[in-house]
């Protein structure tokens, strides 16, 4: 039997190696937990040290910032008169909800009479041109006139028709319904009354004119708005604004409505050095009102495992946020990162935290005292 000869220094090398390994191993636990404290059950009871497992925190809310609710401008409609006139009657009341096309106000305007007259004249002209074209068509058919004349009268009839359409559209634009146009056609009665109707459905927020007032198209007769979505303008310090993104979820301070970030302002207000973040709030339940001042915080998800702990559990050790975790007889200080903080709870992230960690939630001041060297008497 042959023996493969090992180099002569193997033995001592192995010994040295195991010795070094042992020494390193002996050192390692010390480096892993330099600040571990010993806390027996008696001591814990005597000092009122209590522990609790951390709760998983689904989302992390930022601190709250002042915000103001407003009407979303895309949902706002200004109702004005198309032509100058005098207001007869205001039908729509502030705070009414009106559907599209609902009657809002009655006015009278000479322009309306003029348009009606123009229409009637166009109607007559179109009828006349039509008869001319027909007679010419008959004459051409009998070979009495040249086709050229028939073409001219046909084109004149088309022009008159087009003019009639235009006048008719003008009347519709002035607020007459198709039915009313027919009535006019039949009755040939020109009136100067106008009806102002709602171009979109919504809530009447305000009216800008009074009965008897002479107005033109620059006066906002009614302000309508759809309040199913509201705009929330949040004043956020510039540094914080840089961390936000569109479509981030937003939580309102005292309302459960959903809200998402619509856009983030590009310029800062020189007076307060804050950036306005525009947020759309879902107000289909109708509880929120534009004009209210409130506060909002931004939620961030996808930060990894975040845990929610009572506020009293987090302490500062050497300036860094830390929690104390009890493992049997030992208490370790685990550094953490604070994601968000309110008066009652803190959302944190930390490597040493797990769903079954026994985090000290009462008595942290005693543990810090132990670290500081307080305790007992000599």
């Amino acid at each position, binding site marked *: 039997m042959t023996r493969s000869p090992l180099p002569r220094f193997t033995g001592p090398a192995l010994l040295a190696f195991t010795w070094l390994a042992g020494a390193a191993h002996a050192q390692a636990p010390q480096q892993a937990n330099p600040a571990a404290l010993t*806390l027996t059950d008696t001591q814990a009871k005597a000092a009122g040290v209590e522990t609790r497992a951390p709760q998983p925190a689904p989302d992390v809310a930022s601190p709250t910032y002042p915000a103001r609710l407003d009407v979303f401008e895309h949902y706002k409609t200004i109702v004005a008169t198309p032509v100058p006139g005098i207001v007869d009657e205001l039908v729509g009341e502030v705070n009414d909800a009106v559907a599209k096309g609902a009657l809002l106000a009655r006015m009278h305007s000479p322009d309306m009479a003029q348009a009606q007259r123009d229409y009637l004249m166009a109607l007559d002209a179109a009828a006349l041109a039509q008869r001319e074209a027909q007679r010419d068509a008959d004459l051409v058919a009998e070979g009495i006139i040249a086709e050229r004349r028939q073409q001219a009268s046909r084109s004149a009839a088309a022009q008159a028709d087009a003019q009639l359409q235009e006048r008719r559209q003008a009347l519709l634009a002035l607020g007459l319904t198709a039915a009313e146009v027919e009535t006019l056609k039949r009755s040939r009665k020109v009136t100067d009354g106008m009806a102002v109707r709602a171009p979109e459905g919504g809530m009447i927020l305000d009216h800008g004119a009074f009965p008897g007032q002479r107005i033109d198209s620059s006066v906002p007769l009614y302000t309508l708005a759809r309040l199913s979505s509201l705009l929330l303008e949040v*004043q956020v310090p510039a540094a914080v604004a840089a961390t936000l993104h569109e479509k981030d979820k937003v939580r309102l301070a005292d309302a459960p409505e959903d809200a998402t970030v619509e856009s983030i302002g590009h310029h800062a207000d020189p007076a307060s050095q804050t950036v306005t973040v525009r947020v759309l709030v879902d107000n289909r339940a109708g509880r929120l009102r534009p004009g209210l001042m409130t506060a909002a915080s931004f939620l961030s998800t996808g930060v990894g495992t975040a845990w929610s702990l009572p*506020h009293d559990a987090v302490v500062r050790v050497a300036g860094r946020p830390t929690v104390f975790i009890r493992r049997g007889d030992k208490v370790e200080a685990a550094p953490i990162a604070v994601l968000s903080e309110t008066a009652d709870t803190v959302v944190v992230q930390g490597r040493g935290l797990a769903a079954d960690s026994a985090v000290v939630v009462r008595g942290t001041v005693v543990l810090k*005292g132990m670290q500081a060297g307080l305790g007992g008497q000599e």
Partner: protein
Amino acid sequence: MIARLIEFSLSQRLLVLILIVLLAGAGLFAARGLPIDAFPDVSPVQVNIVLKAPGMTPEEVESRITAPIEVELLGLPGKQALRSTTKYGLTSITVVFDDSTDIYWARNQVAERLQGVRDMLPPGVQGGLAPITTPLGEMVMFTIEGPASLAEKRSLLDWVIRPALRTVPGVADVNSLGGFVETFEVVPDLVALGARGVSLDTLKSAIAANNRNDGAGRLADGEEALLVRSEGSLRSLDDLRAIVIATPGGTPVRVGDVAQVRDGGLTRYGAVTRSGKGETVEGLVLGLRGSNAQAVVEGVRQRLAELKSQLPQGISLTVFYDRGELVDHAVGTVTEALLIAVALVLVLLILFLGEWRAALVVSLTLPLSALATFLLMRAVGLTANLMSLGGLAIAIGLLVDGAVVVVENAVERLNHAHGRPMSPLTVIYRSMAEVTTPVVAGVSIIVVVFLPLLSLEGLEGKLFRPVALAIMFALGASLLLSLTAVPVLSSLILKPGHAGEPWLIRHAGRLYAPLIRGALARPVRVFIGAGVALAAALAVFPLVGKTFMPTMDEGTIVMQTEKLPTVSLAASTALDTLIQRRIMEQVPEVAGIVSRVGSDELGLDPMGLNEADNFLTLKPQDQWRRKDKAWLLDQLRLATADIPGISFGFTQPIDMRVQEMVSGSRGDLVVKIKGADIATLNRLAADVAAVLKELTGSEDVLTTLNEGMQYLTLRLDPLAIGRLGLTVDTVEEALRSQLEGTQAGSVVRGNRRTPILIRGPADLARAPQVFANLTLPMPDGRLIPLSAVGRVERVDGPVLLSREEARRQSVVRANVRGRDLVGYVADARAAIAAKVSVPAGYELAWGGQFENQQRAAARLAIVIPCCLVVIFVILYGTFGTARQALLVLGNVPFALVGGIISLWLSGEYLSVPASVGFIALLGIAVLNGVVLVACFNQLLARGVPIVEAVLQGAQRRLRPVLMTATIAAFGLLPLLFQTGPGSEVQRPLAIVVVGGLVSSTVLTLLVLPALYQRFGLPRPRRVTP
């Protein structure tokens, strides 16, 4: 002159008798009015300034308030020390003056200087001179129990109980602790304010400006006059809510629209918890400096009883500390000892003198001397306390000396003269002539012996001067009586009787005769024996521990706790309650615990939120499991050993204050490190504390952690602030109004003033993050986030700043157990010199109890030799030769032998009371020596040969020597076996004197005659046997 005095008294006997009766009456009257306290007033003349600046950090307070004031006070005339402690929101400055300074003058001086600096102090600083009380002035402490809220209890204390108690004569003030001081709290909604464009300033001025009643003037109504009064002052929360702040855009904005108005409380700087049951309110009655403690406590008790009817239903006052009890106990103990001593002395007198008439005459001097002493004490202004009454107890045995010698000689003369035709008066007159010199010399020697005690300074001086004075008055009175009243009484009462001697003397004489003969025959053997005894004593002396004063058992234990400096008030009180429950469960001897954490209202004891004093009231000793105070303390230490993260120390109420007063800190040993930089001071303090903890005998090593107080610093950016159109003042004012609150006037109802406070919501104070995101409303209504004006950082800072003579210092204190103080301090010095490196600009100073001991030792080392010289002079005057004077003086060391050995055997330490014992021993030894040598000289003068003279003289003087010794010893026996408060102080003294008397008497009766025989006369006349 003395002879003429005796002549006069004997010839005017009736006059003397009348004078005696008058003396007795005056003495009784004085005794009745003598102020009584347990402890003499050892406090120095000091003036305390307490200033409160709510919300300011220690460094701010130090630089803006403490330092300017200290600079002003440094130059005060008569100032001995200037100390200050600066904490969060508070500074306490103490100026200690020389003892001869008048307290009112001192206060005046300090007040003047303070007035001059007032303008330099920041606005909002409250306070001033503290009341005229001493640190020992805490007379009565009580808590308020019952079903009422803390705010109501505190209100009751402030507005009902305190004014009532302040009218009791002798009460300086009543301190309040704990509870909530009621306020009307206005919590503005910043968002609402901002939305309406109203600033906090406007809110505050609106409230302040809408709160007044006024008189407008007078109207004439026909022939009568109507006084016009306008009422606009606030009386309730609703009134507050209705105030209009502004009218932006025509709509009035009221306080109630923009703020929550509710009942609140001032930020608390301290709290009180009781016996594990939670918070309560404590009142502390402070006695005026120099007042009669007994009278004050009586007055307070009476007033509290009267107040019972004025308290609402269910509320009661529980007194948990009453100085009066200690006083009664202590004084009772000493009085008991006095009475027992008197009884013993009487018995001994009868035994020694053999007949009751002589005993009667001698015993009459006791009450008469005592009464005369009271009269003199009253005249000088001494109070009756443990120390002065203890002095009287020591003197009992000595009081009768003079009378004994006079009467004893008179009896002898009368017995031997009944055959001759001489009137008793003449006999007594002749006998007086014989004994006057030794009596006067002897008593004055004892008086002189106590003179050094009068020279002691500081704390020990205040403790032992009453002792010395009481003894000197008593002895002086007894001397005067011995020369005037005793002869007169003897002449009236004594009858010439049988010539026989009482049984005791006969036996003693029979025992003594062979002994003295043997001694005189073999003097060398006697000398060797004495030398051996002396050597033994010298060998034993280093083994006896040395300390300053044994501590008096006050019956109440105070436990001091220290927690993490940054602990909040709520957490601190919760921990206190836990600790209380644990102690009361595990140590049933504790009847109740009252813990006070933090500072009191007046700021006299400004502790931080992490420091607490726990007063433990104990059940009567017969209910304990073991009647041993040291064991109980051990039990308490065991009970608290398992509570981690908190340091514990044990002391007693008066002891704690006395220690604190002496060096500004509490501890047997106090090391002060002086320097400028706080971090370095902290490091040095930690190093020193670590070294001390390792020494044997160390106990309760504490150093105030002067760092670790967390500050949330807002570093204001001046550019940012300026850009926003603001100032630093506006921003800081807005910040402060959110947390601490700003006061906007107060609501006056009856005699109660309730402040109106504008403050942020409670949530703000609970979450630093919420605070960091605060938006501040500016004067123009804008909401500015805090981050726009500066950066928020967490920083560590000091907890308290302690200064002495206007220099910063840090303090390490330690108590000593199981070994003597001086040895421990020596070890500590060596250890610290070796292990702690002190950088340049920093120095260590050593203080605490041991500095008293050093001072006392140094002083006594000078004074006692002087005293010996004076005694030598007296002896020289008596005997006429230096040789004999030296002989008597040379007897003294042998006398002290017994004292040292008995001290060593009993395990007591050499302390100041023991030293007083040695002094008394010295006096008695010299007195006995004088008596003997005087007799020898007389016999020699009559021509008796020296050997016979010595033999006869010794036997003749056996009785007086024995009487002096035994009566002195028995007079002290009660003190030896006592157990009440104060007995720890008297016992070492009694041990020394009783033990010493044994050896002293033996040596006086054996060694002195032998020495006299050998060396008493100049060479030619010496006769060797």
